[in-house]
C-alpha cells in the first residue's frame, strides 16, 4: 500500500479544513441573506399597505376628475373596482396571497395600470435604469478612485488639488440643481445634446444603429449629471485611504529601497486601498434598482425611479412592492457576494 507523503497529507487536511470552514461561512452568510430578504420584503409589504393612499379612490378620482359624473355611478364603480383589484379580504389574506404569488415570481397586476402585470412594467424600465446607473456608477467609481488615489499620493500636485476642490465642491449640490445646470449648459446655452427622453422621437426601439446611437446621445447628460455629483465621494474616500496608507512602514521601506513610484502607487497603495471601495461599489450597484428619481424626472428618462414615484402616488402597492422587492434582493445579493469574496480578496479577513 502506497503511503501518502506526510507533508502532502497535512496540506490536503489543511485545505479540506479550510474548505469546510469556508462552506460553513458560506452557509451562514446565505442564511443571513435569506433572512434579510424575507424581513425586508415583509417590512415593505406592511408599510405599503399602511399607506393612506387607496388605489380604488385614486382610480375613481382620476376617472371622475374632469368629466361628467353621476353620484350614483361613483358608488357602483367603487364597489366594482374593489372586487376587481382583489382588495377585499383581511390584510392577512392579502399577505398570504402576496407570498403565494411571489413564490412563482409574480408580483400580480399593477393597480394603477390594471391589468398590466407589474413584472411587465418593471421589465420595461429596468434596462434603462441599469444602463444609466451602471454606467454612471462605474465611471464615477473609476475616475473618482483613480484621481483620489493620485491626489492622496501626489499631495503637492496643484492640478490634483484643483481637481479635489472641484470634486468636493460638486458633491453637495442637490441632484435637481445639477441636472438643471447641465441641461441649461448643454441643452440651451450650447445646445448640442438632446435633453429629453431615452431616445429620439419616432425612432423604432430595436437594435438598429440609429436607435443605439440615439440612446447613447440621450444618456450623455443624465450620466454626466449623476457622475458629477457622485464622483466627489469616491475621490475623497480614496484620497483619505491613500493618505493613511502612504505613512505605513512598508510603503516607506519600499520608497527607501528605491522601488519605482508608479509601482508603489499601484501595487503597494491603491491595491490595498481598493478593498473598502469595492464594498462601496457593490452596494452602489445593488442600489441602482431604486432608480435615480430626480435625474429621470428632469431628463424624462424612462427608468424605475419615475415608475416608483408613480406607484407611490397612485397607491399602487403591487408596483411599489415589486420594485422594492427587486431592490432589496439586489442590495442583499451585493452584500452577500462581497462577503463571500472578502476572505478571498483580502487575506487579512478571516472566515472564522
Amino acid at each position, binding site marked *: 500500500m502506497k503511503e501518502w507523503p506526510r507533508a502532502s497529507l497535512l496540506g490536503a487536511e489543511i485545505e479540506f479544513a479550510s474548505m469546510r470552514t469556508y462552506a460553513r461561512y458560506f452557509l451562514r452568510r446565505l442564511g443571513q441573506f435569506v433572512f434579510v430578504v424575507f424581513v425586508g420584503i415583509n417590512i415593505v409589504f406592511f408599510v405599503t399597505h399602511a*399607506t*393612506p*393612499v387607496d388605489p380604488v*379612490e*385614486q382610480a375613481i*378620482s*382620476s*376617472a*371622475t376628475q*374632469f*368629466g*361628467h*359624473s*353621476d*353620484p*350614483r*355611478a*361613483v*358608488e*357602483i*364603480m*367603487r*364597489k*366594482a*373596482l374593489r372586487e*376587481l383589484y382583489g382588495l377585499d379580504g383581511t390584510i392577512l389574506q392579502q399577505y398570504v396571497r402576496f407570498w403565494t404569488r411571489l413564490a412563482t415570481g409574480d408580483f400580480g397586476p399593477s*393597480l*394603477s*395600470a*390594471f391589468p*398590466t402585470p407589474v413584472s411587465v412594467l418593471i421589465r420595461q*424600465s429596468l434596462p*434603462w435604469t441599469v444602463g444609466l446607473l451602471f454606467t454612471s456608477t462605474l465611471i464615477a467609481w473609476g475616475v473618482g478612485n483613480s484621481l483620489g488615489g493620485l491626489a492622496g499620493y501626489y499631495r503637492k500636485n496643484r492640478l490634483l488639488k484643483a481637481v479635489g476642490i472641484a470634486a468636493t465642491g460638486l458633491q453637495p449640490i442637490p441632484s435637481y440643481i445639477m441636472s*438643471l445646470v447641465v*441641461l441649461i449648459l448643454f*441643452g*440651451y446655452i450650447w*445646445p*448640442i*445634446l*438632446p*435633453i*429629453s*427622453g*431615452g*431616445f*429620439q*422621437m*419616432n*425612432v423604432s*426601439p430595436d437594435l438598429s444603429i*440609429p436607435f443605439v446611437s*440615439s440612446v447613447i446621445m440621450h444618456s450623455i447628460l443624465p450620466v454626466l449629471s449623476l457622475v458629477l455629483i457622485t464622483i466627489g465621494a469616491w475621490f475623497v474616500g480614496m484620497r483619505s485611504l491613500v493618505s493613511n496608507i502612504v505613512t505605513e512602514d512598508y510603503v516607506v521601506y519600499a520608497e527607501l529601497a528605491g522601488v519605482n513610484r508608479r509601482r508603489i502607487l499601484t501595487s503597494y497603495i491603491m491595491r490595498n486601498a481598493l478593498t473598502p471601495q469595492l464594498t462601496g461599489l457593490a452596494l452602489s450597484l445593488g442600489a441602482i434598482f431604486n432608480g435615480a428619481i430626480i435625474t429621470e*424626472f*428632469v431628463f*424624462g428618462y*424612462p427608468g424605475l425611479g*419615475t415608475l416608483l414615484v408613480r406607484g*407611490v*402616488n397612485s397607491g399602487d402597492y403591487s408596483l411599489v412592492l415589486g420594485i422594492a422587492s427587486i431592490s432589496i434582493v439586489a442590495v442583499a445579493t451585493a452584500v452577500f457576494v462581497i462577503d463571500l469574496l472578502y476572505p478571498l480578496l483580502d487575506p487579512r479577513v478571516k472566515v472564522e
Partner: protein
Amino acid sequence: MRTLKMLAFMLSSLLFGEHAIAQADFLAGIPRNEVLIAENPEGRITNSTWFNIWVVNHGSNSNGLQQLGLDTLWYIDADAGIDGVWDNSLASEKPIYNADFTEMTVKLRDGIFWSDGVEFTADDVVYTVETQMKDPTMVWGPAFQASVDTVTAPDPKTVLFKLKRPNSRFHAIFTVRWNAAWIMPKHIFEKQPDPTKFNFNPPVTLGPYTLKSFDPNGEWYIWQRRDDWKRTTLARFGEPGPKYVAYIDPGPPDKRVIMQLNHELDIIHDTTPEGMFTLAKQSPSSHGWFKGFPYAHPDPTLPAVILNNEVEMFKNRDVRWALALLIDMKAVSLASYRGAATISAIAVPPTGLYPKYYFDPLEDWLKNFEIDTGKSKYKPYDPTVAQQIADSLRPSMGERIPKDPKEIATAFGRGWWKPNPEVATELLERAGFKKEGNRWLKPDGTPFSITLLVEGDQRPVMTRAGTMIAQQWRQFGIDAKTQAYPSDFFPRVASGDFEAAMAWSVETWGGHPDLSFFLDSWHSEFLKPAGERQPPRNWQRYSNPELDKIIEQIRAIGFDDPKGVELGQEFIKLAVREMPMIPLMSYNVFTVMDTTYWTGFPSAETDPYTDPVPNWANTKYMMVKLKPAQPK
C-alpha cells in the same frame, strides 16, 4: 497630448454633428415644420401600450387619443367655440327628449368612417352603451347602469335611449366639456372575448388623426392626419393644419420653458407663473391666452376654500362669512398666481361666457348685498378689487397690464369682499365665539383652530394661496395652519377627513350657462354622513332645502331653457348669502403657444374659438385653425 487633441476634435465633431442633425430632424424622419408638439401633462405614461380608454387605468387621457383620435355625439366649448359653443359632432342635431325626459333620441351624421374604412353607425353607439353597462369596472359603465334602461337603434342613423328615471341632462354623458363617453368601434371590440382585457393597440380612430408611432416607455406619442380626414366630423371646418401632432412628456416646468425657447415644444400645457413671465420677456414668438397679464387661460373651474359643513364650527353661516371677511384677496392673488389670477366673489368661475350670463347681471345686486351682524349692517362687496390688483402690478409690469376697465374685468375679474376684521368679530361673537387675549375660542371654550389642507408640491399655486389665507386667519387670532397631502388629497377630501381645503367643487361648461354639470351633485339626496365618502362634487357637504328646490327646478326644464340662467342666478345669490365655501378665482392655466412653426392659436383678444389647454378634447378644433408659419 496629440492623441488628446484628436479625441477632443472627434468628440466635438460628433456633438456638433448631432446638433446639426437634431435641428434638421428633431423627430426622426418628420420635418419639424409638419409637426405640432404639445405637452402631455400626465408626464410619463405607465400603461403606455393601452389605448382602451373605456377601462379605468387605461394609458392616458392626455396623449392625443381623446383629443385627436376619438369622437362622440356633442361638444360644448369652454370659450366661444369654433361655430358657437355647441357643436353637433357625431350627432346631426341636438338631443331630442320626450316630454317627461324619460327618452332621448339621437340622430347621427352620415358619411363618417373609422380609420380602417368601416362606416360609423348607430350600432357603435348601442354597443358602447350595452358593453359598458354590463361591466361597472368600465369608465362609463356605472353611469349607464345608473341611468339607462334600454338602448336601441331603430335605424342605422338613429339611437333611442329609454331611461330609468326622468333625466333632462342625460346627454351630458356624451357631451364633451373636457371629455365624455367616447364611442367604441363595435367591429373591433366585438371580436374580443373580454373588452376589458383588450389594449386596443393600435387604436382604430374616429377622429381626424391615427397613431403613427409611440414610445413604449410612455414619453411620446405621434399622431398622423388621416388621408381620409374628410370622412371625419372635423372636416366640416376644413383640413387639419398639422400633418403630425406629437404629445410628449417635457419634464418639469423649468425644462418646458427651455424647450419652448429652443422651439422644441409648440404648446406648453401649464407652467409656473415665473416660467410664463420668463417666456413673455425672452421669447417674442411665445403667447399666452391673453396678450398681456395674466397670460393664463382661466379654466371654467373655481378654486375655493372648501369648508367642511359637517364640522360643527362651520355649520354656522356667520362663521363661514367671518372667515371670508378675513381674507385679503389682493394678497392671495399675489401670493398664488403672482398677480395673474382672475378673481371671483361668486360661486361660478369668471370665464367663458359666464361674465355675460352671471357676472354682469349680478353686479348691482352684489354692490347692494348687505350683512346684518345684529350690531351693524355692512355691504361687503368691493367692485374695485381686480382694478386694485392691476394697479399694484402696473409699476413693475408696465404695458403688460391693461388699462381699459373692460379688459381688466376680463383678465383679472371684478370685485371681491373687503376685508373687515370688525364685522368678522361681530359675526363670530354672535356665533358664540370669544376672544381671549390674542386668540379666539370656540363656544365650547376650546381654541378656534383650522387646518387647511393643501396639495403641496403637486399644486404649488394653490398651496401658496392656502398658506397666505392661513396666515391672514392667524393674524386675526385663529390658530390656522396648512397641512400638505400631495398623494391623497382628493380621496381625503372625499372622505370628509378635513376641516378646510384648497380645492374646487364648482366646474362649469364655460360656454353654456347650465350649471347642472356640478350643481346636480349638490342635492341633499347625495349627501353622505361624516365618515362616509362623498361622491363628486359637493365636497363641502352642504345641504339646504332652498338649494334642493333650485336643483329640482333645473332638472325639470330643458338644457337650453332660458329659465336655467335665472335659476343659476338664484343659486349664486343663495351661495353668497350662505357662503358654503369661499370662492376665490378661476383655475388659471399658463398654456403658452409658440408661433415659430404654427400660427392660428386661440387667444382671448383676437379669436377665442376654443380652450387652448391641449389636453382638453376640444383641442381637435385647434387643428383646423392652425397654419404653418414656415414654408414647406
